[in-house]
């Protein structure tokens, strides 16, 4: 074990290998407030990558309803339960994680704390769909803010972590993190089906193929990424909740890089379960009307700030933030930079070519209810 720097924990932590960050790190921001759990991302991935025999149960991308949904069964509560209560030290700025990660609280003889789901755990990919945190009864006023009765949808893919648990756990060194973009891949020739990665990954994004008897995982659609194009799940997102780019370390944050802007500048996009210690590279804008205590367990101590800033944006106070989030809807090219010019947001690819331009506020035309010229009535008046 060596000491490596995990900026999400604001401290050094133990890991199997040295800190060797890739030259670029692919990343994405998911705005949970916009997700409608249509599962279009799930099917885009499924039909592209896991339609083979032996992959029936696999969803490299899945969307679960929180708080009860999980795929595989109890993936998050089971690892949290194994680690036990782990505190953050809020007296520092930024806040420091003072608990133990999955690499630090490890049983004797193991590389990483983990557990391996069996077939039944994988058998209910959308268990808990649309269930609310509590039973709705008359005593609850679910129009209060934050909502007393709530749920939200959590879309998940492989986190392409900076310190992947799967890489640390694989005794074969069959899993590697690409130097050029940080994508984590399982070498299908080297894998011997030990399932150590399945056991170790706290997000449970390594999956065992019943027929080829080796493990597979999300590949962040690297053939597309190499062409500067978004992965399938991101391109096909109906709710337009996703934004794809590259994330830097906080000290190298580029305020004009849309991911850095959301993660480091505005701190509105947060890692999922940062306390596990893998430094995941998919970031989430937390839902603004759900229970803050629950959200803090899931996204760390930055939740209150993120919710506050997002609400501010909805009140019209964050034009830059609004502009960046609008870019989610407008291109399938991986963004390198963005710019806000008067009332327009502009997106540039990693070579600096303009790939998206859109108004911060869509122009509205109000039409009269009765069109006397055509002698028709219009119910749709905007």
């Amino acid at each position: 074990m060596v000491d490596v720097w995990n900026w999400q924990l604001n401290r050094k932590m133990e890991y199997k290998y040295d800190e060797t960050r890739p030259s670029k790190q692919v990343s994405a921001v998911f705005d949970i407030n916009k997700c409608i759990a249509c599962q279009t991302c799930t099917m885009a991935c499924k039909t592209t990558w896991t339609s083979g025999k032996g992959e029936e149960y696999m969803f490299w991308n899945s969307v679960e309803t929180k708080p009860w949904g999980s795929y595989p069964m109890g993936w998050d509560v089971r690892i949290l339960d194994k680690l036990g209560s782990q505190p953050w030290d809020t007296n520092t700025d930024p806040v420091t994680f003072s608990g133990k990660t999955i690499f630090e609280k490890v049983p004797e003889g193991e590389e990483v704390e983990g557990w391996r789901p069996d077939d039944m755990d994988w058998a209910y990919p959308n268990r808990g769909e649309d269930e609310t945190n509590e039973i709705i009864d008359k005593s609850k006023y679910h129009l209060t803010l934050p909502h007393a009765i709530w749920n939200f949808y959590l879309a998940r893919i492989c986190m392409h972590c900076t310190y992947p648990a799967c890489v640390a756990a694989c005794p074969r060194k069959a899993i590697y993190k690409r130097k050029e973009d940080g994508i984590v891949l399982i070498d299908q020739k080297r894998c011997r089906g030990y399932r150590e990665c399945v056991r170790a990954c706290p997000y449970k994004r390594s999956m065992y193929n019943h027929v080829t008897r080796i493990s597979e995982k999300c590949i962040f659609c690297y053939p597309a990424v190499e062409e500067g194009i978004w992965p399938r799940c991101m391109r096909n997102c109906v709710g337009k909740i996703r934004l794809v780019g590259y994330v830097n370390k906080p000290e190298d944050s580029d305020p004009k890089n849309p991911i850095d802007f959301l993660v480091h500048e505005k701190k509105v996009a947060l890692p999922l379960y940062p306390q596990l210690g893998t430094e995941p590279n998919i970031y989430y804008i937390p839902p603004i009307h759900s229970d803050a205590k629950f959200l803090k367990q899931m996204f760390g101590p930055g939740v209150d700030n993120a919710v506050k800033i997002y609400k501010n944006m909805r009140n019209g106070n964050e034009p830059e933030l609004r502009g960046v989030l609008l870019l989610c809807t407008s291109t399938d090219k991986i963004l390198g930079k963005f710019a806000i010019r008067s009332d327009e947001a502009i997106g540039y690819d990693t070579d600096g070519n303009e790939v998206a331009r859109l108004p911060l506020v869509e122009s509205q035309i109000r039409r009269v209810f009765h069109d006397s010229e055509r002698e028709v009535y219009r119910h749709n008046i905007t």
Partner: protein
Amino acid sequence: MIKNKKTVIMFVITLSIVLTVLQYQGIVPGTSDSGTELRSVYTEEDIPATDPESSLWDEATSITVPISGQTSTNPKRLLPSVESVRIKSLNNGTHIAFRITWNDAVKNSKTTKNQEFRDALAIQIADKGSIPFVCMGSAATGTTRMHIMQWKSDWQRDVEEGFQDLEDSFPNFWVDYYPYAVGEPPYRVPEDFPGNASLYLPGYHVGNPFSDPLKVTSVEDAIADGYSTITTQAIQNAVGRGVWKNGTWSVVISRALDTGDHDDTVIKEDNILAFAVWDGESQDVGARKSVSSWVTLKTRGKTKEENPPYVAQICILILYVIALLAIIGLIGFGLKRKKKGKVSKEEGEATEDKPDLKEEEQPKKTGEDKKKKVGHSQKKSQKNKVSPAKKRKGG
């Protein structure tokens, strides 16, 4: 009284020397013992390369090798799944077989489901010399590469019963369609997945041996150069088979002594062997295994290669008998002198031991020299005999 005592001592000494000589020559099989030396017994018959139940195994000496947990690297197996394995070996001069027997209450021979792990057994072979690190050797220490042969219960099941496909584990499973697959649901692997359809079976498509549905052997022939390096060899020379009965696995792994494959260790006198056992029921896999320490392989006088011809064998036997008589004479002489009791204790021991040792060494040396010479000429002639066998294997 003294005369009787003398006779008993001489009888015991004579018997033990004769037995040792006969065992050494392979004329009398050794008895079962636990130890660090495995004697491969020579047989004129075809060795039972895939039959752990052959009566030929009765001729081989059994040793019991203690097994411990794998505690060198993570993930570890802190306590072993079995206390020991019992090992026998037979060879016929060109091929060698090892039979390993161990207790395992539950047979695990499938790896289709997430929670299924195989029972398995591996033999690791290295040349003598600097004893390599027992866990797959180490490139860093400059020691030899490890030759590893791993028998896998699920591979054997694929070979004997046909590929264990999805529907064999999930009988109620149904599917309408797989991209480019031909035939009818549930679409059998691999015959219904030709051409582009195989792209959707990634491990199979890239040629991973673990994903190969058409396995021809239950034993993987591999090399390793330290942790994380085990690699399936391009040429597979090992065969084997296991039988599980009444809570016991009995597994044979066999191979040509010299396969001609540069990735294989040539099996010969003083090779060192280590054994590993995986218990599928305990979810053993990869580094989660139980292991033995090194065992030395003794083939001298047992393999055809080094076995002197019949006449030479008799000559050696006569030499041993002469040496034996000389020793008996000397012991008798020594006892007589002792009886006279005039020599001081220290002097007496010194004068008695010296001629004993000299005489003991002398015939042994002669025997070994002779054997070496014979063995050498035999080796030369053996080479011609081995080559057709090699060709057969290669083809």
